[in-house]
């Protein structure tokens, strides 16, 4: 496992470098710059601004300068939010998005696992069909449709919850629901399929023969093996929550990292976009590594040469 972690960390460096280089040059190709507006700046002022932010230097020189600062952990000042540094913006944005994302993932996991297990144990019956139908709607309806509906119902009509902002636990409820819903649906379906297979496996039949049944059977013997496909899905799930958060954060006015992703590009805020891309890139690499490590803990057979999920009979 240690070798795996080391391997991955070493691989991460060239990956991040390529990511940085591509983003750096790509965003500068886009027409327009950070200081454009209909109220044009006088040419002298504009020349000075470009000088202050090193935009008048050749691209390769700018890139070298950026990399030099990067290895020292300096993401530079934001080119649009003139009073803020990129590290500050990412730091404050991430602490919010992390809370939102982690809670959404947790809720999605818990609700999805339970729903999927219930459906699997009641396979073919009414509850199974109902849960799966709900899951299908959850996957089909995009979160930018669900979110305003939630606001309309809970914030405006019922006045139970706030419509937006980020000031207390009650402000988390609707955004978490909006983000988690599609993932609940996926995880429920995955769990159901996987649980059905596990319930059929020889070792579960053996346990049943020994008299173990009901909740004890599910929790002690089935959950861990059934969880494996869900675990593999956690990587893409986290990525979906990250991208979904861009929309949800806008609808609920949450000061997370998602806003900087889109708005940074529209504002041509070169340094902020670079910072956010590198940060997200590193995050996804770390998260995938974590998932792989967890996977080997859940199923020790992964580390050994055998890769099948059936015991040899």
């Amino acid at each position, binding site marked *: 496992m240690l070798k795996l972690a080391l391997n991955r960390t070493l691989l991460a460096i060239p990956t991040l470098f390529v990511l940085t280089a591509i983003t750096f040059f790509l965003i500068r190709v*886009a*027409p*327009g*710059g950070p*200081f*454009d*507006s*209909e*109220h*044009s*700046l*006088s*040419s*002298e*002022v504009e*020349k*000075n*601004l470009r000088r*202050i932010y090193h935009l008048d230097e050749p691209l390769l020189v700018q890139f070298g300068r950026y990399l030099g600062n990067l290895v020292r952990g300096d993401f530079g000042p934001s080119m*649009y*939010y*003139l*009073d*803020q540094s990129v590290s500050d*913006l990412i730091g*404050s*944005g991430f602490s919010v998005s992390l*809370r939102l994302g*982690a*809670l959404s993932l*947790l809720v999605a996991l818990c609700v999805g696992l339970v729903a999927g297990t219930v459906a699997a144990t009641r396979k073919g019956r009414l509850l199974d069909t109902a849960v799966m139908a709900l899951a299908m709607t959850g996957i089909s309806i995009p979160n930018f449709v669900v979110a*305003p509906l939630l*606001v*309309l119902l809970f*914030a*405006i009509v019922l*006045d139970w919850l*706030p*419509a*937006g*902002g*980020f*000031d*207390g*636990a009650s*402000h*988390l409820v609707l955004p978490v629901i909006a983000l988690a819903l599609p993932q609940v649906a996926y995880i429920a379906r995955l769990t159901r399929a996987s649980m059905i297979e596990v319930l059929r496996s020889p070792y579960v039949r053996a346990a049943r023969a020994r008299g173990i049944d009901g909740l004890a059977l599910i929790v002690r013997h089935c959950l861990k093996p059934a969880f494996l496909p869900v675990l593999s899905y956690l990587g893409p799930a986290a990525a979906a929550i990250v991208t979904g958060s861009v929309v949800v*954060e*806008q*609808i*609920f*006015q*949450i*000061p*997370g990292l998602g*806003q*900087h992703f889109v*708005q940074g590009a*529209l504002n*041509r805020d070169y340094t902020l976009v670079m910072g956010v891309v590198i940060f997200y890139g590193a995050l996804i690499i770390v998260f995938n590594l974590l998932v792989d490590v967890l996977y080997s803990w859940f199923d020790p057979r992964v580390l050994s040469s055998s890769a099948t999920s059936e015991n040899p009979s």
Partner: protein
Amino acid sequence: MRRIIAAVVMLVIAWLVWDSFGNRLGRDDPEAVAGQRTVLHRGNGTEPESLDPHRMRSDSALTIGRDIYEGLTALAPDNSVIPGVAGSWDIAEDGLKYTFYLRDDAHWSNGDPVTAADFAFAFRRLVNPDTGGVYAFIISPVKNASAISAGNAAVDTLGVTALDERTLVIELETPAPYLLGVLSQPSTSPLHRATLASHGDQFARPEHHISNGPYVLTEVVVGSHVRAQRNRYFHSVDEVSIEEIVYHTIPDPATELNRYSAGELDMTYTTPSALFSWVTENLNDELHVSPQLSTYYYGFNLDYPPLRDNPGLRKALSMVIDRQILTDRVLGAGQHPASSWVPPGVNNYQPSEFEFLVLNQDQRIDRARGLYAAAGFSDDNPLKLEILYNTGEGHRNIALAIASMWQESLGADISIINKEFRVLLQDMRDGNTQVFRSSWVGDYNDANTFAEVFLSNSGANFARYSNSDYDNLVAQAGRETDVEKRRELLQRAEAILLNDAPVIPLYYYTTKRLSKPYVKGWVDNIMNFQLTRYLSMDSD
């Protein structure tokens, strides 16, 4: 082992939820106490890019700037000029020298007195090219201001002198009758020199912020809100009713409306156009619709061959557009069709109007067809034009409407192309356009702010219009001290502009904002300013 993991997971969840409890805004809303409303929650549009008065340029940032800073003059709720930090002033006969006498009781938010030297320092920083101040041009009439901004003169040659602690002298190169209004703009605010000395460009951050306006910054959370607290050292603090302001950053008008409906905002920045009819039906008593000092227009690129040297063709294109249909049917939010370049309601000014206004729509189409044919176009040889517009509410609908009007009435072949805002700006600057959509918002309440857009050397002259008669008239108006004569000069300039038709003014913006019935002190005005110092809220 399993128990340990379960315990850790529980703790993590608890932290995730707990940490959100009142942690962000960090204090109890005094609103809840005794039914008194003391905190004003304002929707404030997009994220302010900076709270440094010399780096502000978006309306969102300037809105906050007007509450936290005060210049030599201030504006009353109806936009008329009143004393600000300066209690009184003298203007020399030739209009080239202004002497301002500062109030004794003008203080910074830490108790320090506001001095003339604070103003002199601030003005020099504004025009200094190293600052990158967008609004440096606004004091261009001041002696040497333009030269300094262009890098051709030293900063300390600026015609602003502090005679003593309380007296400031400003010398001008040309008379500027609108100067007093300009001096209320946040860019012309004084700066607290000690804070700049110790914190440099970080002086505008809330932890360092010292200001001289009715309010002072206390918190900035990017993407969420900005908070400001009443400044107890403000000279007229007894007249300021609202104790605290929260400016909510809500760029999406629909989201803003949701939060307003849920009672989380006391006033909005705007209203979503798509829901405007719903708002007029359900929230009509809370809606304010008033004309704004800004014009929406289509510009011609005068370097583009069929349009170049062809004012007849350009006028034809302008004439056939039924602006009433645009405002009533396409937009439907109370906008007014444009009849001139300068919007109505500007101080001391009556705009010149399109000469074709005397004709009805059918007559205009007839005349336009004549001009179109005279330019050499016909059904066999239609005029081919591209309309460029930026992504946004209504822009596409307007482009479609105008394209179809040109096609139906003249038989022209029109295509419309959507570009992202900055890409469009780049095209406009590079001259890579034929017809482009743009708008102009007045910086101060005077016709000059609209007239100077079309000077040959103006950076905002994206139509690439150049007419020396026009330039001369506007320059002459800039030197004229007599109000009547000045108005006449500007009107003649505008008439020339409308005759040459480098642009097609389409409509004047209206602001459409909501405010709760308990918010008092709201006065509709053409600059669309709602300074919090004039507002108050009734208690429950």
